[in-house]
């Protein structure tokens, strides 16, 4: 068992570095995880690694006691029964609506066709945003590079996550609406939250101090 007495789900990708740095501060030995990017399970350190969108799944099922993932992932999977314990502050991204620079296809589409066509990986967040702002929307779910969709004329705009806006700009897109700011969150399995209360509270306390 690890230094924390807990199994921790760690996201691969953009959040991984910041997450491992934090875990170092908890006394977890992350050297092996850092030096090996093929292995997924690190029993000695009490770490399992996975793509960020899988973290709530593993935590909900109790395969990990706690985990770290982006708020965007949690907003996209609200039915997952997990505790959201802490805003860790790093991995800051903006969920935005973007369009081809200077091209008002969205407005035109809304006015003349009664709806906008939006490509996104985040269909729930997008649907809620357009519903809340009173606009009818036709969502096109895509898996990869969303920036392509408006360039080909398939859609009027996109909803996507952006950290620096660089990829958007390089593809001739501009941000027109900001939906929500997303940061890394600490989540916990509901049963572990009760049965391993002392261990989880110790982690929350340490992370609160480390990130504030």
């Amino acid at each position, binding site marked *: 068992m690890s230094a924390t007495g807990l199994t921790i789900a760690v996201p691969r990708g953009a959040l991984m570095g910041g997450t491992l740095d934090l875990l170092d501060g908890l006394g977890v030995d992350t050297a092996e995880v850092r030096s090996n990017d093929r292995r997924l399970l690190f029993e000695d350190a009490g770490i399992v690694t996975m793509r960020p969108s899988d973290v709530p799944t593993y935590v909900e099922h*109790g395969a990990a006691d706690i985990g770290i993932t982006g708020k965007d992932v949690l907003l996209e999977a609200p*039915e997952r*029964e997990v505790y959201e*314990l*802490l805003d860790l502050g790093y991995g800051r991204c903006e969920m935005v609506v973007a369009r081809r620079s200077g091209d008002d296809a969205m407005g035109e589409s809304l006015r003349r066709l009664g709806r906008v066509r939006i490509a996104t990986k985040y269909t729930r967040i997008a649907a809620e945003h357009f519903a809340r702002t009173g606009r009818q929307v036709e969502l096109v779910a895509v898996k990869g590079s969303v920036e392509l969709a408006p360039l080909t004329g398939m859609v009027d705009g996109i909803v996507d996550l952006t950290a620096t806006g660089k990829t958007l700009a390089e593809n001739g897109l501009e941000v027109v609406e900001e939906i929500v700011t997303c940061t890394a*969150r600490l989540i916990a399995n509901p049963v572990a939250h009760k049965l391993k209360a002392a261990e989880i509270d110790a982690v929350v306390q340490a992370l609160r101090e480390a990130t504030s």
Partner: protein
Amino acid sequence: MIHPIPAGTRDVLPDEMRELRAIDERLRSSFADAGYGEVWTPMVEYEDILNAADWASGSGGSGGVSPPAAFRMFDDQGKVLALRSDMTVPIARVVATRFAESERELRLCYSAHSYRTVGHRTGQQREFLQSGIELIGVPGPEGEAEVVALALSALANAGLARHRIGVGDGALYRRLLEALDVPEDSHRELLACLTRRDMVGLELRVDALGLARDARDLLVELPDLRGGPEVLERGDGPAGEALARLRELYAALEARGIADRVILDLGLVRDLGYYTGAVFELYDPAVGFTLGGGGRYDDLIGRFGGPRPACGIAFDVQRVHIAQTAEEKQR
């Protein structure tokens, strides 16, 4: 050729059925030995009856509603029927109508299928087998302690060794909001955060209220308090009345020698609106989900007739089975 069955339903084949039946029998024999008589109620009820739970708790419930019916249909008179979403509401109707004259204590149990709406994902059942008890006419900690003790011994009888029970008060946080004069229009949102376990959202919204430091800290920290009797001291303050009730209940559980199985949890809210006091949730360290739960619902039976104090608890039999096999594997 594929012949699908509705999402969230399942066929049970002999190997599983044998084990499932054995667990169900053991739970029921525990209930019977404790003097609980088994009842059946119709699988379909008039929708109005099932909705009675919604107005039982008024605006005060944490979620404010009974579980929504997963299936509705019309009968030949055009009346709306619904499949029951739990057994507590039908049994409240039975108590108020069939036992209207009896003032004495009633001990009822059941093992039956109920139906709920669930998200579209695997593992969640729209049709599920519930086994449980309802204790009517025994108010306060005495009744709650009996229900908790029986729940624990029934699970032990069903083959679990490491199960625990979370005990909280469903009205605690609401009382705290009232005592701290938190504007009423933000109650629902704060309780909703708590119900969906969004502690980050809760803290954000509490901060936005601009309260005095100690009131703010209490609202943020109290729901995190869970563990042994020390949490009752740490949570003391404006919510003292609810805490006093929990303290009494804990003493009753100690007297029964089962306090070591109990996790006092000041953040525990069940998402059913009809709970008025103590609430329970069942855990096993071998699985990541709850095995069942219950609580005190003193206002519900009064919706169908004379008011009677009552509390109960229900197990999801299939989940108990999963926990039992998981425990077996870890042994």
